[in-house]
């Protein structure tokens, strides 16, 4: 699969002027692509040529280009972030592709993620899910000494594995139901694994699940597509944990469900 020679590719790219416009696929050639270039660098070069030709470059969201900010992401041949597991598009390198391949690039498609332009879509629904309860209600100042809270390494590690989510939306994009269960559950479990997060865990689960539904994401049917597409390989067990948290919260009396700002 690995090639040292430069390659040529055909790109079928979704072009859509704005949120209201109807989009369509347009074919472009990507010529003389270095196998060491990242996928986005390949697109940069295509765009550079488009600008010179007086055409509008392909718009895609991107920023850190080291796989952590969560900005980038679109479908390459039906795979969110492309064919390689545990990788964001910005970290996907052209040595994964072979000469002459045709690649279809599409934006994330979900009702809750409307396309803004070309390969860029609006993922602010995720912020609203976090806003509904993805936090611990502590004001600045007055926190007790960090070592006064003992956390077993196992729980700290589990919490970290859930907290690794970069909010790119690949889970939603790859789910046939456009479910945000993996994203939402990762935050719920991250905080539920930690003693600090347990005070508000019931109300948090109720609010975040309600917001997730209100945003118009679908339900989880446990296909596992989300976890397979996740660049941070967040596990499905987070969804199980969310469901458990949600059930417990639902059968807990309201006044016991935790208060604070979350109520």
């Amino acid at each position: 699969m690995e090639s040292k020679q430069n390659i040529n590719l055909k790109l079928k790219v979704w072009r859509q002027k704005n949120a209201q416009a109807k989009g369509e696929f347009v074919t472009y050639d990507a010529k003389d692509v270095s196998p060491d270039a990242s996928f986005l660098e390949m697109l940069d070069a295509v765009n550079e040529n488009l600008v010179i030709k007086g055409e509008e470059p392909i718009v895609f969201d991107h920023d850190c280009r080291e796989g952590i900010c969560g900005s980038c992401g679109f479908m390459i041949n039906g795979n969110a972030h492309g064919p390689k597991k545990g990788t964001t598009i910005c970290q996907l390198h052209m040595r994964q592709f072979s000469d002459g391949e045709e690649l279809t690039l599409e934006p994330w498609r979900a009702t809750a993620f409307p396309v803004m332009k070309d390969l860029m879509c609006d993922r602010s629904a995720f912020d609203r899910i976090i806003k509904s309860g993805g936090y611990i209600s502590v004001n600045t100042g007055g926190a007790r000494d960090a070592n006064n809270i003992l956390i077993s390494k196992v729980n700290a590690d589990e919490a970290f594995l859930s907290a690794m989510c970069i909010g790119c939306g690949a889970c939603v994009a790859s789910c046939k139901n456009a479910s945000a269960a993996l994203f939402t559950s990762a935050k719920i479990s991250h905080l539920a694994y930690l003693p600090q997060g347990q005070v508000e865990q019931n109300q948090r689960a109720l609010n975040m699940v309600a917001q997730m539904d209100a945003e118009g994401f679908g339900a989880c049917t446990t296909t596992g597509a989300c976890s397979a597409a996740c660049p941070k390989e967040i596990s499905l067990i987070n969804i199980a944990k969310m469901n458990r948290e949600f059930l417990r919260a639902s059968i807990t009396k309201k006044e016991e469900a935790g208060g604070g700002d979350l109520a």
Partner: protein
Amino acid sequence: MSVILDSKVPNGPVETKWQNQKFNMKLVNPSNKRKHTVIVVGTGLAGASAAATMGELGYKVKAFCVHQSPRRAHSVAAQGGINGAKNYQNDGDSIYRLFYDTVKGGDFRAREANVYRLAEASVSIIDQAVAQGVPLAREYGGLLANRSFGGAQVSRTFYARGQTGQQLLLGAYSAMMRQVDLGTVELHSRRELLDVVTVDGKARGIVVRNLNTGELESHEADVVVLATGGYSNVFYLSTNAMACAVTASWKAHKKGSYFANPCYTQIHPTCIPVHGENQSKLTLMSESLRNDGRIWISSKKGDKRLPQDIPENERDYFLERIYPSFGNLAPRDIASRQAKFRVDEGFGAMGETAVYLDFKDSIGRLGEDKIAERYGNLFQMYDKITGENPYKQPMRIFPAPHYTMGGLWVDYNLMSTVPGLFVAGEANFSDHGANRLGASALMQGLADGYFVLPYTVGDYIANTTLGAVKTTDDAFKNSENEVKTEIQKMMNIKGTRTVDSLHKELGLVMWEKCGMSRSKEGLAEAIEKIKKIRGTFWSDVRISGAANEINPELEKAGRVADFIELGELMCRDALTREESCGGHFREEHQIDGEAKRDDENFCHVAAWEWNGTAEKAQTRHKEELKFDNVKLATRSYK
């Protein structure tokens, strides 16, 4: 006319300055706080923490970010860790030692009082982060784990694998989103600051471009906080994210904020080397790798052998050789420079521009599992980018632009020379002097946002008469018109050069002439070249699309225009600073490859004042630096 800048550092011993300052501050009545609007631009560690905390206090906060989500700010990419003077390891750490290390690490070009306050706050930051649920690494007993970092001989760095920045940012972001939920913070995403509006000499608002619609919007406030990060992207290739820009700071500079020490830039020693022409950015490999990795090159010039074929006795562990006491943990500026010297002399790995970072010994000592647990994600990232497995063969690394110590000048209260305009985090110049030590950027961003600004902003509001302003006032309309005119001007050029090509050209000049080592001739030459690039930009740039829609080319163009002007100032600053200190290395001022400071003539901050147009060079002002606690001495890590 050069003015002496007043840093407003309070009197008294360094240990009590901040305590006293806090006590002497005037307070804003809790019920009055919601009548005051604070604009926070940028939602990285400094911005998000400031917005959250001031929201909690009851101010009406408006937060702005260029990203769609505030969580995407580039603080997210910080890998290694955050310092906290907790002395949990019982290895002799203290606030004073962190203060001392940071002042020394900054090569005696930082303001002592600020650094002490930073060291003090470091302790509370760790507590705050843990309370928010940031999953910092733990030992089996449930206590927090630490690791050591460059420039320090104690273990005071807290971390969350190689994703410490992400975890701390998500903590600050979630704290801010909680305030958004409570209605104290109003979030404006996909907005780029294009002007700071002043009324009666005070910052009273901003003009932003809505990146989704292209519309210009004005927002008024009593205080404007800029937390918009650094300017390493002036080099085009850097470890910064693509959207990182100097634009917000530069617009403030043009409205009267002095720009301090622009030539202090940090070239990070451990990055993945450049691989090709189309490369858009460089990727950092956390400095924490130097804890367990050994840096070496072949002791033979032009050695093209594979690293595994070079026998132990033909390897030069040059950092361990030159700096026996700090070894591979020498500060970043020194480690970078030594790597550059070796490569310049022709010792580069396989004859290329790189040196080796080798984990063979520590894998042998600790086992692959332990190394994977510490650096797994970094190794994976290296593998993804280079296609090489660092468990089996040494990494190849080379220095790359990473952080900028310079920034808008601020006083002790983090207020710039424009009253009401505060600057936090990497965007200001204050705490790192001429070189930043590892794991202290996260610390500074959060210290400014959580523990400094909420006090000093309140003090400013309580002490200042702030008349009512409206976005329909002339000041705002004029600003909007100026911005609109400039955008139109750019769009109308319709030349032949793409924005990226100009940016690359600028970056190359900056890297070669104003990078790891600088000379008088080189800098003078660079200034001329940059002027030419500026000319080309304004006569021949080509921006596709329209101004009233999503247009990344236009966004980039505006940022590059500002980088060009900044580049010139950086060179001028480097040219005037006739000494070597920290990241600023002048070839004329060295002793055997070590920086030679000139404390007699340059123990000061250089702060530049904008003179109305880019054609007119900025005026240089000084803030004298006094070292009452840490004795001025030649930095030695030997």
